[in-house]
């Protein structure tokens, strides 16, 4: 690689982009004008709005059904509120009419007053205030009425106490005063920290994506790519030169963002100077965030560059960028969520880590160790993505991709062809939606019955129907073949070691992402016999899923992915199996189990084997949960609810011998060619 060449390319790209109006607008103009507009505009507008609201006339109706002294006092007290007008009660409507008036916003609130007697003989006035929470005016009316009547109540109570000669101070047993100790800097940090990461990430990525799509996909579109490919510049020099261009412009964008934001803030605080007192904006934090943005930018630039390399034209690049942008938006929003604290697990997830770290920096309470982990892990990802970019740029299949014609042809006439990757994906998405919307509702109504309905109606039945209608050989597709009985024995031997391994994986995930206790309790209660008999649970949670899910995954899906090759098919099926459980924390252990089940199906050519393995897995988990006291031999494996890590060794050894056994009993030569991968 020649640095001088890279600089030549870099300079040209910068010149080219700086003459592009779109770049100028999205990367430079937008950040500069956005913050002043956003903040100054917003604050002045909301304060004006509030003043306007305060001064508006409020009309309410008081339906006084008790007509006694106190209720008249209430009327008197309410009428003292300025801007509040109580509608004349001479016109006697019924209550419904008034509710209608409230709905069409002719009045802001409706109060009904009734009285009742308490057991000790005091009159209690029952007031109901009808108002519309979605209307700001109506909500304000409610607040004013509530405050006013609270004061009145105090007066009334002290009168009553006076009557029986008790000092009203007796009511002040506990006095609560609130004193906010957060310095104004921290308050600013708290507010800014919530939306800053989000804004910054979105603005940078959207700026960078415009540039990135232009840099390579744009060259393809305009036919200039060939000219630089035949030049004496090497391909990695071209990629690096372009990469540096995206990074430079993105850094300028971030810089402008932060600067503009800082100035806008200062302006606002200067205006409010009298009330807020004198304080400094945390400029050091802004600088640290700028520094932190650099690895994030380099990471995104590399991904965007790969997308741009792969795409045939700008439009295609933009459509591939969409999911990335959406994903980034979703992930960056964690800073809005309460209760999300940066921990080891989150510090390894791109974007989430930056979002949380930036928030903590603005709050002035971040840990240096996480700062380094976040930067370090991102730099590793950087290197990987840049490497992928360069690799893509070397591949002629990628650079000269021809139009894909067969896009949605799988609905075609050939019925045998229906089982392919696209079909499986579409089917899987529909099934997940059905599980989420229909299955979960059934399960809320009645857990056990719902589970049975879900497994049979949503998982098993559709597969059978599809296979019938696609005229495929069901027996062959589902691998309903005779198999050596020894396979069943081997699977039974492997069940406990596998359960323990999966448990250990879950345990490690739990270390990185500590789960809440309620989550674990929910999981346990599903398996426990508190409400249902053990046999019912074993049938519903152990046996039925074993059969239905195996037909679906190791039968239908795995056969449909034949063409993708043996390991690809198994791994892809396992990933779908993991997603299917709709639980991010169990994704990894479940997928691992999926690989094992897929391997069994492929190796023994019989679905019966993974079905048994699946049933064993589930049932064993149920038995251990319920009868841990009877499994005494497990006591030295499980300590304080945690599986000892040395268990990995014997477990792996046992599984190794089981795999050897599977090889002996299912020699490759006899493998049915039609089922070969």
């Amino acid at each position, binding site marked *: 690689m020649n640095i001088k060449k890279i600089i*030549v390319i870099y300079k040209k790209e910068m010149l*080219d982009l700086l003459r592009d109006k779109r770049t100028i607008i999205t990367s430079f103009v937008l950040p500069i004008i956005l913050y002043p507009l956003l903040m100054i505009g917003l604050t002045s507008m909301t304060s004006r709005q509030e003043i306007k609201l305060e001064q508006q006339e409020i009309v309410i109706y008081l339906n006084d059904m008790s007509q006694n002294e106190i209720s008249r006092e209430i009327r008197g007290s309410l009428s003292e509120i300025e801007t509040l007008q109580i509608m004349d009660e001479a016109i006697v409507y019924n209550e419904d009419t008034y509710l209608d008036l409230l709905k069409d916003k002719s009045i802001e609130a409706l109060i009904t007053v009734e009285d009742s007697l308490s057991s000790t003989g005091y009159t209690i006035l029952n007031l109901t205030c009808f108002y519309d929470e979605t209307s700001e005016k109506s909500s304000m009316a409610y607040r004013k009425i509530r405050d006013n009547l609270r004061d009145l109540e105090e007066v009334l109570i002290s009168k009553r106490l006076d009557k029986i000669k008790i000092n009203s101070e007796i009511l002040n047993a506990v006095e609560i005063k609130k004193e906010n100790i957060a310095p104004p800097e921290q308050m600013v940090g708290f507010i800014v920290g919530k939306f800053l990461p989000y804004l910054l990430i979105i603005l940078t990525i959207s700026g960078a994506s415009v540039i990135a799509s232009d840099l390579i996909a744009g060259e393809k579109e305009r036919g200039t790519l*060939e*000219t630089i490919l*035949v030049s*004496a510049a090497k391909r990695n020099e071209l990629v690096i030169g372009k990469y540096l261009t995206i990074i430079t412009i993105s850094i300028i964008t971030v810089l402008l963002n932060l600067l503009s934001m800082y100035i806008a803030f200062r302006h606002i605080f200067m205006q409010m100077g009298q009330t807020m007192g004198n304080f400094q904006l945390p400029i050091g934090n802004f600088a640290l965030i700028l520094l932190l943005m650099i690895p994030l930018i380099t990471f995104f630039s590399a991904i965007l560059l790969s997308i741009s390399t792969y795409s045939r034209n700008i439009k295609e690049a933009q459509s591939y960028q969409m999911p990335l942008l959406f994903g980034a938006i979703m992930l960056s929003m964690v800073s809005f969520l309460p209760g999300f604290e940066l921990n080891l697990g989150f510090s390894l997830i791109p974007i989430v880590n930056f979002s949380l770290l930036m928030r903590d920096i603005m709050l002035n309470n971040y840990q240096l160790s996480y700062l380094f982990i976040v930067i370090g892990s991102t730099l590793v990802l950087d290197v990987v993505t840049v490497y992928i970019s360069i690799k893509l740029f070397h591949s002629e299949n990628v650079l000269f991709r021809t139009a894909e014609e067969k896009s949605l042809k799988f609905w075609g006439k050939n019925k045998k062809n229906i089982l392919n990757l696209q079909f499986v994906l579409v089917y899987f998405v529909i099934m997940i939606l059905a599980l989420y919307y229909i299955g979960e509702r059934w399960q809320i109504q009645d857990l056990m019955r719902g589970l049975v309905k879900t497994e049979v109606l949503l998982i098993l039945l559709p597969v059978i129907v599809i296979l019938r209608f696609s005229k495929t050989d069901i027996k062959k597709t589902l691998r309903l073949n005779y198999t050596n009985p020894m396979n069943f024995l081997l699977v039974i031997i492997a069940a406990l070691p596998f359960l323990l391994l999966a448990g250990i994986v879950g345990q490690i995930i739990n270390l990185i992402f500590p789960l809440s206790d309620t989550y674990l309790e929910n999981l346990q209660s599903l398996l426990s016999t508190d409400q249902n008999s053990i046999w019912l649970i074993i049938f519903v949670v152990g046996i039925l899923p074993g059969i239905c899910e195996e037909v679906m995954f190791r039968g239908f899906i795995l056969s449909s992915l034949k063409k993708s090759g043996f390991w690809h098919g198994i791994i892809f099926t396992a990933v779908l199996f993991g997603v299917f459980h709709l639980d991010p924390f169990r994704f990894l252990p479940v997928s691992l189990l999926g690989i094992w089940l897929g391997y069994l199906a492929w190796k023994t050519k019989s679905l019966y084997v993974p079905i048994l393995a699946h049933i064993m897995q589930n049932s064993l988990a149920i038995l251990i949960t319920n009868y841990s006291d009877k499994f005494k031999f497990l006591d030295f494996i499980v300590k304080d609810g945690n599986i000892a890590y040395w268990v990995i060794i014997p477990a792996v050894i046992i599984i190794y011998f089981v795999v050897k056994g599977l090889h002996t009993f299912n020699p490759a030569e006899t493998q049915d060619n039609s089922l070969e991968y």
Partner: protein
Amino acid sequence: MITVNNLSKVFRQQNGEELYAVNNLSFTADKGEIVVLLGVNGAGKTTTMRMLSTILQPSSGTATLEGYDLKKDPQNVRANLGFLSGDTGLYARLTARETITYFARLYDVPENKIHDRINKMADLLDMHDFLDKKIDFLSTGMKQKVSIVRSIIHDPPIMIFDEPTAGLDILTAKNIISFIHKCKEDGKCVLFSTHIMREAERIADKIVMIHQGKVLAQGSWEEFIENTGLHDLDDIFIHYVNNVVKEDA
């Protein structure tokens, strides 16, 4: 000079079948010679030229350009090569001079020579009026001139032109043809592709007729007349295509 040896390129099509875009192609092109690759649409001209300019990797066979092997030494092949095709574009936001300077630097032309070379080429192609205008504002003919200069700014011994006159009016096309003639006189080795028989007839020292990736026939204009007894290149081409069809049957 260019020596092509059993060069083949296989593309995998969407339906999974293999397509021999170039099939066992062999020919040579010498210094001071204009060799025309002549073939109908889809014959494999562009694919051949892309392989020779190292953009695509040959599936089998190889070629040497100025003694450098395509596969072993692509870097040197590119340094000795000027490549221009009819559908290559230019950077719209750069001026003609900026564009040419950029490519001169990519080709390692010494910084102090760039200015002189641009001026010399501008004299030759009458480009001084628009050298400092943005490409966006240039006419098609002006753009084509910029493209030519861009592709040969490093004074390469070998030039590859893939249908450079496609879509141009006769006057501009004639300019380009006469420029190519001049290159030949300067002792360059020129490989030129077209599907227009007349054009081939006019400038070629040697014609390589290709069809469905294979060489139909090669030789000079005179040799073709001698071998077939026909006087029109269209007829000669059809004659050879029919021959192949007969052989296949």
